[in-house]
C-alpha cells in the first residue's frame, strides 16, 4: 500500500510530500525523502518492551511497572527535571507541562542547547520572519549563515529556497542569489553564488560591518573584517539592497559560537536595517523535528518557550539558571525524565555523569546513548510513523503527522497521560 503526502518526523523542515510504501504493517520503501528521512522511517532498532536496569544488565518489565517507577521517582524528587520534548508531538508536550506543574519541577527542551540564544535575542529585539512559502515564492536573495542545509536539512534548498519553483520568479534557480557565510567551505558553500568565509568567532564583527555599510557608514569599516574583505562586504550589501525579497537563515554556527545571542541579535538588527530599504526576513534553522513545537506549547501553557521552573508554583524562567545543562552541572536536580531526545550523546560530560547518578527514566522508541545512563526506558510508538499528533515547522506552521503503520506500543501522550493520572491520584486530586 502506498501512502501519499506523508509528513517526515526527522528535522524542522517537516517535508509533507513523502510517499511511504507499507506491506504487512511494515514500511518497505520511502520516496521523496532525504537520506535522513529514509533512515528514520526504515530504522529497525526499536525496543520492544520497557526495561529496568539490574545489577549487571537489564530486565524486561511491564508498562505498568515502568509507569509506576516513573510516578514514584517524580513524586519522590525534590528537583525533578523533565527534559527533551523535541522528538515528540505537541499533545504529549502539553501533558508534560501538566506533569511538571504538578510536581513543581523544571521543564526544558533541546532548545537550550540549540536555538536558545536565538530566543534570547528575539526577546530583546523581536523577530521579522515569515513562513517558508514567502521565501519560496518571492526571494531573490537567500543567505545561509552558520548552517549547512545540504547536510543538516537536506531538502531545505529544494523545497523552500534555491531550487524551488516560485510564483514571482520565472526561473527561480537562475534568478535567486545564494550567499553562504561560514567558517569552512561546506557542501552548501560550494553551490553558493557568494561564499563569505569568516574566521571562527568573527560573526559579530562581520554583521556589524554589514550594518554599518547598509547605514551608509562604510567608511568606518576596515579593509578586512574577520578575514572578509571590505569589497566583498560592500558587494553583499549591494546585492541585499537591490533584492526584492531577501531571506536570512541561520544555524548553530551563529547561535553557539562566540557571541552567542549577541550574534543573533546583530543578525536580526541587520535584517531590521535592510527592511528600511527592501523586504527582508530571518528564520532560525530549527533542527530537531518538533523543537519549535515545544517552544510554542510551553509558551501558551506557561508563558515561556523553554527552561521553565515550577518550584515556587508560578512559572519561572531564567535560562542559564533554569536550563537543563546548568541544573545538571550544578548537580541540583535529583531525578530526570527524558523524552524525545538523546542528551547522553550531546551533553557535557559533567552533566552526563550527574544524570547517571540520579534516577533517570527515558521515554524513547530506540536504545540510545542516553539508555546507558538510565534506570528505566519505556519504548513508545514513533510520532509520525506509528503515532499521530501535531508538530510545528521551523517557521511556525503546524502540521498534523499521521500514523503510517498501526502501533504495537503506546505513544508518548498515552504513557504521559497514565503517569499524570497516577500522580494526581497519589496526590489525592
Amino acid at each position, binding site marked *: 500500500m502506498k501512502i501519499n503526502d506523508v509528513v517526515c518526523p526527522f528535522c524542522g523542515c517537516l517535508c509533507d510530500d513523502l510517499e511511504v510504501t507499507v506491506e504487512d504493517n511494515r514500511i518497505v520503501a520511502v520516496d521523496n525523502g532525504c537520506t535522513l528521512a529514509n533512515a528514520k522511517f526504515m530504522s529497525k532498532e526499536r525496543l520492544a518492551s520497557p526495561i529496568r536496569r539490574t545489577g549487571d544488565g537489564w530486565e524486561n518489565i511491564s508498562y505498568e511497572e515502568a509507569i509506576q517507577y516513573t510516578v514514584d521517582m517524580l513524586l519522590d524528587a525534590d528537583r525533578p527535571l523533565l527534559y527533551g520534548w523535541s522528538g515528540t508531538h*505537541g499533545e504529549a508536550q502539553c501533558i508534560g507541562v501538566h506533569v511538571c506543574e504538578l510536581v513543581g519541577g523544571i521543564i526544558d527542551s533541546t532548545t537550550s542547547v540549540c536555538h536558545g540564544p536565538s530566543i534570547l535575542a528575539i526577546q530583546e529585539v523581536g523577530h521579522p*520572519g515569515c513562513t517558508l512559502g*514567502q521565501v519560496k515564492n*518571492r526571494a531573490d536573495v537567500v543567505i545561509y549563515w552558520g548552517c549547512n542545509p545540504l547536510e543538516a536539512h537536506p531538502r531545505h534548498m529544494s523545497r523552500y529556497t534555491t531550487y524551488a519553483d516560485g510564483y514571482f520568479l520565472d526561473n527561480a534557480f537562475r534568478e535567486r542569489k545564494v550567499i553562504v557565510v561560514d567558517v569552512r567551505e561546506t557542501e552548501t558553500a560550494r553551490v553558493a553564488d557568494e561564499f563569505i568565509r569568516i574566521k571562527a568567532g568573527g560573526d559579530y564583527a562581520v554583521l556589524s560591518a554589514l550594518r554599518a555599510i547598509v547605514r551608509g557608514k562604510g567608511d568606518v569599516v576596515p579593509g578586512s573584517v574577520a578575514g572578509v574583505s571590505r569589497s566583498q562586504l560592500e558587494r553583499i550589501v549591494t546585492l541585499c539592497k537591490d533584492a526584492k525579497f531577501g531571506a536570512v537563515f541561520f544555524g548553530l554556527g551563529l547561535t553557539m559560537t562566540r557571541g552567542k545571542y549577541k550574534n543573533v541579535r546583530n543578525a536580526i538588527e541587520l535584517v531590521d536595517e535592510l527592511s528600511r530599504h527592501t523586504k527582508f*526576513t530571518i528564520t532560525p534553522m530549527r533542527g530537531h523535528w518538533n523543537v519549535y513545537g515545544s517552544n510554542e506549547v510551553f509558551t*501558551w501553557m506557561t508563558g515561556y518557550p523553554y527552561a521553565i521552573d515550577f518550584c515556587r*508554583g*508560578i512559572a519561572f524562567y531564567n535560562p542559564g539558571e533554569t536550563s537543563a545543562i546548568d541544573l545538571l552541572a550544578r548537580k541540583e536536580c535529583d531525578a530526570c525524565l527524558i523524552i524525545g531526545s538523546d542528551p547522553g550523546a550531546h551533553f557535557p560530560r559533567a552533566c552526563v555523569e550527574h544524570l547517571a547518578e540520579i534516577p533517570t527514566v527515558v521515554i524513547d522508541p530506540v536504545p540510545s546513548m542516553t539508555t546507558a545512563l538510565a534506570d528505566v526506558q519505556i519504548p513508545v510508538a514513533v510520532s509520525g510513523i506509528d503515532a499521530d499528533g*501535531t508538530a510545528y515547522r521551523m517557521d511556525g506552521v503546524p502540521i498534523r503527522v499521521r500514523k503510517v503503520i498501526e502501533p504495537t506500543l503506546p505513544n508518548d501522550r498515552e504513557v504521559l497521560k497514565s503517569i499524570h493520572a497516577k500522580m494526581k491520584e497519589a496526590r489525592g486530586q
Partner: protein
Amino acid sequence: MTELLIRNACVIDPLNDICGEVMDIAVRDGKIVESVGSGAEVIDAGGNLTMPGGIDSHTHICGTKVNFGRYMSPEDMRAGRTARQGHMHSTSGYSVPTTYGTSYRYSAMGYTTALEGAMAPLEARHTHEEFTHTPLQDMMANTLFDGNWPIMQAIHDGDIRRAAAIVGWTLSAVKGFAIKLTNPGGTEAWGWGKDVASIRDPVPHFEVTPAEIIRAMIEANEMLNLPHSVHLHCNCLGKPGNHQCTLETFDLVPNANNKRQSLYATHVQFHSYGGSSWRDICSRSEEICRAINSKPQIVIDMGQVMFGKTTTMTADGPMEFNLYRLYHNKWSNHDVELETGSGIIPVYYSRKNLVNSIMWSIGLELALLTDNPWQCILSTDNPNGAPFVKYPEIIALLMSKRYRNEVFETVHPNTEHNVPLAALDRELTWKDIAIMTRGAPAKALGIVDLGKGHLGEGADADIAIYPININETDPATSAEEVIRAFSQTDYTIKRGRVVCRQGTCMVDGKNTTIWVDPHISENYSMDHDPEFAKNFDRYYTVRMSNYPVQEEYIRRNLCIETEAQL
C-alpha cells in the same frame, strides 16, 4: 439531569427586552428553561445585576501571533503570574496572558464566549490547539482573507462566485467562523515591504483594489449565508487623516442582510483620525458616527485605548512596522504565504502623550456618539488598545460624565483642542452596557439562534451575576463601585455550571468551538477543481491534503451548516 435555580436575579437581557426585572432563572442540563423541580440547586443572586454571559466579538487571545507576543515578551509574562491552585493552572502574562490566564480572567469578569479576531488559515491548527486550552469560553475564529491569492485572482477575473467558493472551502477546511479582512490588499503588498495607500490603490501584481476586495467579500459572505458579516479592519490603520479612508469604506457597504449588519468594522478608534501628521492629528469621531448613525448596515466595535503597557498585534504587518519606527522598542513580523501577514510590538500608551490622549478620547466618543448601542460594541481590540481586564474601567467611563472629567483632567492638556469628548454629556445606562457586551455582539456574530447572548427559554445557560445592585447604585457618581462590580462576578455560570465564583475558577472546563460549514454545489467545490489544486500544491509549502484542520482539533464543537447559493 442537572437543575439550577437562580433566585432574586435583577436581570438585564436586552435581546428579550428585559431591563432590571427581579426574577428567577431556571436551568436544566445547561439550558434556560421555564421551571425546574424542587431538587434543583439554588443560587440566591440577592437582587444583584444578572446578565447573559459576556461575549467578546473581537479579541486576540489564541494563535500564532498571540503566542509570539508571549514568546518574545518574558517581561510581560512576569507582569502577571499566579500559582497553580485547585482547578486553576498556573498563569503568566499581563497583556498577553497564557491561555489559562486569559480564560480565568475573562471568566472572572463574566465572559463566556469570545471570537479570536484573526486566524491565518495556514496556521489554523495552532489557534484551535490554544482554544482547547482556553477551557471556560466558547470560541470562534475570524479567518483571514485579506491577501488570499486565488481569491484576489477570482475577483480580478470578475468571478465573485468563485471567490465565494474559495472562502467557503477554506472556512470549512480550517474550521473558521467568519471572513476577516485586515488591511485588505495591504498584507499582500507587505510581502514586498509595501502597503496600499487607499481603498483605490491596486495591490501589486494582482491588480485588484481594497475596495474591490471588500465589496466582493461582502457579496460572497451573503452567497454563503454565513451567520456573521464580513469583519473588517480597514486600510490605513493608525494614520493621521485616515477617517477619510474609513468613510469611503463605509460608503461601499450595501444593506444586504435583514437579520444583521452587512459589515462589522472593528476597532474603529484606530480609524477615526483627522489631520495630516502626528503634529495635527485630531478626532473625527463625529463624522464617523454620523455615517454609522445613518447606516444601519454597519456595526462597529470601539477599539478603546487605555493608558498603560500593552502589546499590539495584528495581521496588519506594514502598520506594525510603521509603529515600530515610532517606538523603537522591538518588532516581530510574520508573513503567511498566499494569505496574510502579521506584526507585533509592545507599546506604552501614556496620558502625557497628546496622540495617546486623543486616541483614548476617540474610543469613548465613538460609544457616546453612536445613537444606537446595538451598533457599537465595547472592545479594546484586546490587547491592542488595552488588555481586556480594563473593560470595567471603560464601562465606568461611559456611565459617568464625572469620572470621565476626572480622567480628562489628567491627560495631555492640549487634548481638549483636538477632540469633542469634553462636550459630550451622554452617560450610558446599565442596559446600554448590557447591549454593548452581550446582546449586540451575539446579534452581530449571528449566534443568537444558537442560544448566545440572551436568557430566553432554550438559550445556553451562560450567566454572569455581578455584585452590584443597580437600583441602589447611581453609576454616574459611583465609578469605583461599577469598576469593582464588573471586575469580578459573584458567579459566572457556563452551560448551567458555576465555573467561577468570586474570581476562583471551580472546574477544569471544556470549550466549544463554533465554526461554519457552507454547503457548496459540486460545480463550485474546490475539492474537485484541478486548477485550484494544481496551484495549491505548486505555491503553498504544505500539501492540499495536509491543510485542512482535522476533527481531532475540535473535540467539542458546534458546526453551523449553511446552504450556499452556489
